[in-house]
């Protein structure tokens, strides 16, 4: 069954902005789904409609098989949402916030106490349980919102840029946490600007831009579509106009004074690049793949449309 099924979804805000222009998506149960797109692409709008925070203009959405028009409450029962912006009652205590959230799903308080401890511990917030939300750091608030979203044990967890403003170490912790959750059967939908994040976590990806899905598929499929691979070379000598001209066929550009980036089409071999270096008598100290592959893909895809 599909966790989420969206057909020709459109959203025009009161301001006249066409935030979604006919989006269709199927997200199977158990998937780890990445939604990638630049600022203003429509990610938060899409998530808002799925979770009941934004009214759609037209189209159909069903959540866990329940149409959000006919059966909004049944669908919401199965979702947990971690929003992009903080939406905590800042004067409430951490523990109360999580327990009250369970209440809105009809979970009895006693049972909620147990789950609250479980998830606050899992997210490293148990020591902070008696603090008011206002006293938490940004990263802690973000984790509190994750704990809050999980308190009723939803089948689907939707996270809107959960790692924004979270340091590298915590981010990795969060990745492991989400991966584990997904392996336990929770469908995860995640929007992100961090492309590394999507590539590491997601099984399937959709790329959204200007309110349209411009590409979707498995991460592998999408990477295959990438027809160029950038490489960076550290050179022994400074880069000159002549150096660049030797590598013109590879779209070379200087990243800094002695690092050059070349873009290698899939049908060419790295050997061809080395031949070009040899011809120019350019010595290479070191070589690595440049920019994240998915990032490159992403840039390609959004540029085309």
């Amino acid at each position, binding site marked *: 069954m599909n966790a989420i099924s969206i057909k020709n979804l459109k959203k025009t*805000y*009161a301001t006249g902005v066409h935030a979604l222009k006919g989006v269709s998506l199927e997200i199977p149960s158990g998937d780890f789904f990445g939604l990638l797109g630049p600022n203003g692409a429509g990610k938060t709008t899409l998530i*808002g409609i799925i*979770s*009941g*925070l*934004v*009214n759609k203009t037209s189209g159909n959405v069903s959540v866990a098989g329940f149409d959000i028009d006919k059966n*909004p*409450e*049944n669908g*919401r*029962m199965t*979702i947990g*949402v971690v*929003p992009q*912006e*903080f*939406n*905590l*009652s*800042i*004067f*409430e205590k951490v523990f*109360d916030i999580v327990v*009250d*959230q369970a*209440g*809105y*799903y*009809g*979970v*009895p*308080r006693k049972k909620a106490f147990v789950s609250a401890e479980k998830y606050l511990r899992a997210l490293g917030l148990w020591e902070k349980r008696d603090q008011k939300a206002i006293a938490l750091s940004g990263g802690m608030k973000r984790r509190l919102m994750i704990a*809050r979203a999980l308190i009723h044990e939803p089948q689907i967890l939707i996270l809107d840029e959960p790692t924004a403003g979270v340091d590298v170490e915590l981010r990795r912790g969060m990745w492991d946490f989400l991966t584990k959750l997904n392996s336990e059967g929770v469908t995860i939908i995640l929007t992100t600007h961090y492309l590394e994040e999507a590539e590491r976590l997601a099984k399937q990806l959709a790329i959204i831009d200007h309110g349209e899905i411009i590409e979707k598929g498995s991460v592998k499929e999408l990477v295959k579509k990438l027809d160029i691979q950038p490489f960076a070379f550290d050179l022994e000598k400074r880069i000159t106009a002549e150096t660049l001209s030797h590598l013109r066929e590879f779209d070379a550009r200087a990243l800094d004074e002695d690092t050059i980036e070349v873009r290698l089409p899939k049908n060419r071999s790295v050997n061809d690049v080395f031949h070009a270096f040899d011809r120019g008598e350019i010595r290479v100290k070191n070589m690595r793949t440049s920019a994240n592959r998915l990032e490159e893909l992403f840039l390609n895809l959004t540029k085309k449309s």
Partner: protein
Amino acid sequence: MSAEKLWICFYTIVRKEIIRIFRVWTQTFVPPVITTTLYFLIFGNLIGSQIEAMNGVSYVEFIVPGLILMSVLTNSFQSSAIAFFMAKFQKSIEEILVSPTPPWIIVAGYVTGGVVRGVITGVLVYLVSLVFAPVSLSHIGSVISFFLLTSIFFATLGLINGVYAKNFDQISIIPTFVLTPLTYLGGVFYSISLLPPLWEGLSKLNPILYMVNGFRYGLLGTSDVPIGGSALFLFIITACALWLVFRLVKKGTGLRA
């Protein structure tokens, strides 16, 4: 959702609201007690002793019901208006919006929160009034129905205000420019039979008049208006207000873009 789950949703909203009201007790319960004490002192004792009996009761007794009801209605209104607006302002209302809690439970929860604050304030003011005028509860049925209906009605209006409000100013406009004048002109401090016919007629268009008089009847057995009709009228406008706010919340007015 099952009845039990719905009850938990409702209980969660109300519980959270009651805790909030008590956490800020210096802003919720202390001011009305101080203001009404001053009213009783100045209008009741100092000036009231110079005024002859009104509708057959002493002036200080006469103003007790209106002053109680005045604090009930302003506090019920403010409570739900502020609670809902704050939840919108902090976006914590999204906690409920993403949940399966149905709109009618959201309405019931916030209105009940407002009623709780209104009722507690009313009881406190009644206790204060006992110091100045030993008013008994002559018609307990009228006391309870007018007290509760007024509280529910104004908690609902407060919620409507909270739904529409886009900033803090917009939740003080109605209390300042509508509620306070209507309350003062609603027969809290005088019997409308003292007014010239034109003003007496105009006063009868003011819904607060019927609440104050119904409640005064409950406490003192005297009223400027028929009681049964007033109760029915109050019941009908309360039902209409509840229906309206339910429609607004269901539609997502001021909540969902």
